[in-house]
């Protein structure tokens, strides 16, 4: 690996200061499961690596607030997958966190890192989109809150400034009964990046939200407010036609080695139907 300087700030202010000082020459290190690979490959060549894991204000706690749940920036996939509140109220996120990499990766990889890495295949991002997750970022001018949908641009690119640091992810508490599911398609069981990764939320008022990744430059969020998708009695063919309309922006890369665009699109529709059905069943079971 190419040499770099290593900084281990103990406060958010110091971390932000380092980012401001070094600009594009600095990279943040949280779990490292993507960063170390890219450092070794030389696809990124920062002069300074800023390790955020010794910042006392920045922890991996998952806290209940009046507004919902707040997940600390250092929370790992293992911690998210093991949290009962997330499993109950944000089931799709729990399921997504549990399939990221394998145990060793989940013990290191953070939710904040999964977001900031901005991979189109990030497994937790579709679930977070369907739950209207908000990213909290600290910068030189203070803290701001950004809707996740406004944060994602394309692979590796977000609307975060160079000197901003994600400190937490907020999940608003549901205002009425709902159920969710996360599904994905991989080449093999166990440990693989997804060819399709999708999350669905069905609400008791009939509104459905679906987000999907690995089918274009960034994960996309779509919704159905007509009640058709959420209707357990509606015919599959009618739902499939509606899903086809909702998925028109899917644009899988023809250059990916993981799956052909045709296969990804076909699986998007299969998993879309399955995710809707699973969420409907879970909502009915919870009542």
């Amino acid at each position: 690996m190419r040499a770099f300087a290593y900084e281990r700030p103990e406060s958010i202010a110091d971390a932000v200061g380092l980012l401001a000082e070094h600009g594009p020459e600095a990279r943040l290190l949280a779990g490292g499961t993507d960063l170390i690979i890219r450092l070794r490959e030389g696809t990124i060549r920062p002069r300074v690596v800023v390790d955020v894991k010794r910042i006392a204000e920045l922890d991996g706690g998952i806290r209940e607030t009046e507004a919902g749940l707040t997940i600390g920036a250092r929370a790992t996939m293992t911690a998210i997958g093991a949290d009962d509140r997330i499993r109950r109220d944000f089931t799709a996120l729990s399921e997504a966190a549990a399939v990221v990499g394998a145990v060793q990766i989940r013990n290191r990889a953070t939710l904040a890192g999964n977001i900031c890495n901005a991979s189109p295949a990030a497994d937790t991002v579709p679930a977070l989109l369907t739950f209207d997750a908000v990213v909290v970022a600290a910068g030189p001018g203070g803290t701001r809150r950004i809707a996740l949908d406004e944060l994602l641009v394309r692979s590796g690119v977000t609307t975060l400034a160079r000197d901003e640091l994600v400190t937490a992810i907020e999940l608003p508490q549901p205002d009425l009964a709902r159920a969710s599911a996360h599904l994905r398609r991989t080449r093999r069981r166990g440990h693989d990046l997804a060819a399709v990764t999708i999350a669905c939320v069905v609400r008791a008022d009939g509104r459905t939200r679906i987000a999907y990744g690995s089918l274009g430059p960034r994960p996309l969020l779509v919704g159905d407010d007509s009640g058709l998708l959420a209707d357990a009695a509606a015919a599959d063919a009618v739902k499939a036609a509606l899903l086809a309309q909702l998925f028109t922006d899917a644009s899988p890369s023809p250059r990916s080695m993981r799956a052909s665009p045709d296969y990804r699109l076909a699986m998007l529709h299969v998993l879309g139907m399955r995710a809707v059905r699973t969420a409907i069943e879970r909502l009915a079971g919870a009542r």
Partner: protein
Amino acid sequence: MTAQARRIELTVNGRSRSVEVAVHHTLLEALRDDLGLTGTKECCLVGECGACTVLVDGASVDSCLMLAVEADGASLTTVEGLADGERLGRLQQAFLDTGAAQCGFCIPGQLISAEALFASTPHPTRAEIEEGLAGNLCRCAGYEQIFEAVELAARDGTPA
């Protein structure tokens, strides 16, 4: 740029160690090259094969995806820490008894992942073993014997 070094303090297999490491070196490099613990293997270097798996404060991690400086202050267990002198750990003995080691290269990582699994799930089901060891590849494809070894060790009681 010139390589920057940093002294780190850590506990490896119960023994306190103080070692100076280059800040751009991985924990895997520090274990093998600076501490001489070559049981931990270097293989894919992208976190897919698990040959470099070690326990850091009880959690299994790929040591190729962690900088050595990140382990400052941590307590580590490598495959060298599983045996008690000449007496093999229960998992190691079970791997021998079932013939789970073929070429043997992946076995240190498999053992550490199984050790981590036992810590949270002393009596895992076959599905839990498969999930717990999903991050450890075996190119000899000795998975059946590896799973049998973990089942055998679980039956024999508390893993050593």
